[in-house]
């Protein structure tokens, strides 16, 4: 079997609020091979973004528990101290495209400078050289080089998104985390950005962790899908398996609730609302909304069941 590039094991990220401890990421494991994309899919508040931030160690101030192991290229990066992590991992190995690219650019710094900055920080490159490289990166994402001198407010939404992607690419990291990279964009612009991401992935052999709430969109990039619910990954499967027939009741229902344009399928929905991450339901966290729930689901937390070829489901139906 091919060696994993990234191996996340038993990752936990809890944070404390006045109302209680939010179990945003609760014992998550996933792995990623070189050139592969894993899509992390789930509804708002299920812990997707926290997962991304836990991997790149951008933790909220009120962290309560941060535990597990993240093995990158055979090295556990959880063990690095903050300064080493900043120097060795951030942007060198893993970069990130943030949700709402509009706001992830500093309003008073020129776009080119912001794209070039990681080179100056991590590779001690001169400003001139770095800006030259930034120009190339911009061209690669489909923006004219002359835009290095523009301020963010002079760019359209789509262009900002491209700048942010160029920024994520500039140090040629092995992994790029894409956190809802197109959620604020129009459908056609979104399609353009997805095209760009696909091209870059193939050309540069990038690995993505693609975080999205949109199952249909996830299929644009995903080689592998991880479905999150209430801080847990409830199903992990190859794209071929997943989009044809998801196994976990939640994934199944979620898929059924996606309206399709080209086919006429019967739409379905999940009654109720996602649970609070402070007091998640006992047993299987999905049981209050699950049509197949039985006694055991209410009492015992299901463990991951291996359905073969990297397909895991956390559900008592398969145990």
């Amino acid at each position, binding site marked *: 079997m091919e060696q994993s590039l990234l191996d996340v094991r038993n990752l936990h990220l809890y944070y404390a609020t006045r109302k209680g401890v939010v179990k945003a990421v609760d014992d998550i494991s996933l792995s990623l091979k070189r050139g592969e*994309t894993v899509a992390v899919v789930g*509804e*708002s508040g299920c812990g997707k973004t926290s997962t991304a931030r836990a991997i790149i160690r951008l933790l909220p101030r009120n962290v309560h528990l941060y535990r597990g192991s993240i093995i990158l290229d055979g090295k556990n990066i959880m063990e690095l101290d903050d300064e080493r992590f900043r120097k060795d991992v951030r942007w060198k190995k893993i970069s990130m495209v943030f949700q709402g690219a509009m706001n992830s650019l500093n309003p008073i710094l020129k776009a080119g400078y912001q794209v070039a900055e990681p080179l100056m920080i991590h590779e001690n490159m001169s400003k001139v050289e770095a800006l030259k490289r930034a120009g190339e990166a911009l061209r690669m994402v*489909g923006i004219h080089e002359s835009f290095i001198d523009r301020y963010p407010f002079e760019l*359209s*939404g*789509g*262009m900002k998104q491209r700048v942010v992607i160029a920024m994520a690419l500039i140090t040629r990291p092995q992994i790029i985390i894409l956190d809802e990279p197109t959620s604020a964009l*129009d*459908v*056609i*612009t*979104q*399609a*353009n950005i*997805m*095209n760009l991401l*696909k*091209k870059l992935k193939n050309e540069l052999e990038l690995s993505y962790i693609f975080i999205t*709430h*949109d*199952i*249909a*969109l*996830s*299929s*644009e*990039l*995903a*080689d592998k899908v991880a479905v999150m619910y209430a801080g847990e990954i409830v199903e992990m499967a190859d*794209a*071929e398996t*997943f*989009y*044809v027939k998801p196994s976990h009741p939640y994934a199944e*229902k*979620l*898929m059924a*609730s*996606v*309206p*399709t*344009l*080209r*086919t006429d399928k019967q*739409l*379905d*929905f*999940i*009654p109720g*609302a*996602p649970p609070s991450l402070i007091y998640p339901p006992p047993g299987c966290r999905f049981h209050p909304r699950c049509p197949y729930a039985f006694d055991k689901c209410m009492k015992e937390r299901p463990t991951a069941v291996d359905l073969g070829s990297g397909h895991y489901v956390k559900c008592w139906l398969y145990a």
Partner: protein
Amino acid sequence: MSEGEMILTVEDLRKFFELRKGLFSKPVYVKAVDGVTFTLKKGESISLVGESGSGKTTLGKTILRLYEPTKGKIIFKDKDVTHLSSESLMWYRRETSLIQQDPYGALPSFLPIRRIIEEPLIIHKIGDKSERLKRVYDALSAVRLTPVEDFASKYPHMLSGGQLQRVAIARALVLEPELVIADEPVSMLDASVRIETLTLLRNLQETRKISFIYITHDLATTKYFSERLFIMYAGKILESGNIRDVIMKPLHPYTQALIKAIPDPDPENRKVLRDVPPGEPPNLIHPPSGCRFHPRCPYVMDICRVEEPPIVEREKEGFVACWLHAKH
């Protein structure tokens, strides 16, 4: 579909916003809605689809007279409501209703649900206290927020997004309006409750014979919830028609692009690139001359850059505004 009674006619409606571009420059105008014409039959549900900035929201709010129309006519139930003054406007307000996108912001956080739904009744001086309470309870049970007494005494922050949106729907329907405009009513909800909410809306619309304008950017949902489709781009309607016809056989290059851009969940997606035009919607202060889509159109011709496209009738129903289909 039978020829029903017209409830709403919109003629050449325009809405321009005055805008100061910088602190120091002269005001300029954003032509958010620029000449829109359509009709709506009683009990009919239509979808208005466009990207952000296409003017679809402005159109909806202008029809509801939340914005003063710059030009054009709005005729509702054979009455010209374009410039109604405040007193008769109250009548129009009672007959029409708005459902908004953001369920968290749509309800005043400091009032209990009961009072929130009662507000329109109080304002329109309907019934006494007990009668109003009954109508509030009826409205809550219509949106399936039961037990109604429990929900009535709660505050918005105690409800989930889906529940809040149902409260908003209950409030929108409590005056029994004839025309409801729903502006992206589910786009901020979780995927799992979207369909539930839309289905509820559709059922209420059908049973109560409400005329309904569904404004959305999500083409995929429209076919489940309405009969006719209008595609808007940069302040204008580019194409209209029966939903299935338009989706199956889009005539306007923009509609085509829109359809191509939307993925269905399919593992094959990742292996292909989508054939969509580059670029982004134009700035509406200085919209492109001629056809507004021409800078992005893969089939652009010289005439598209100069002259506004003609309105060409579609085979069955609706029209397309495009030079490609002009009958020469």
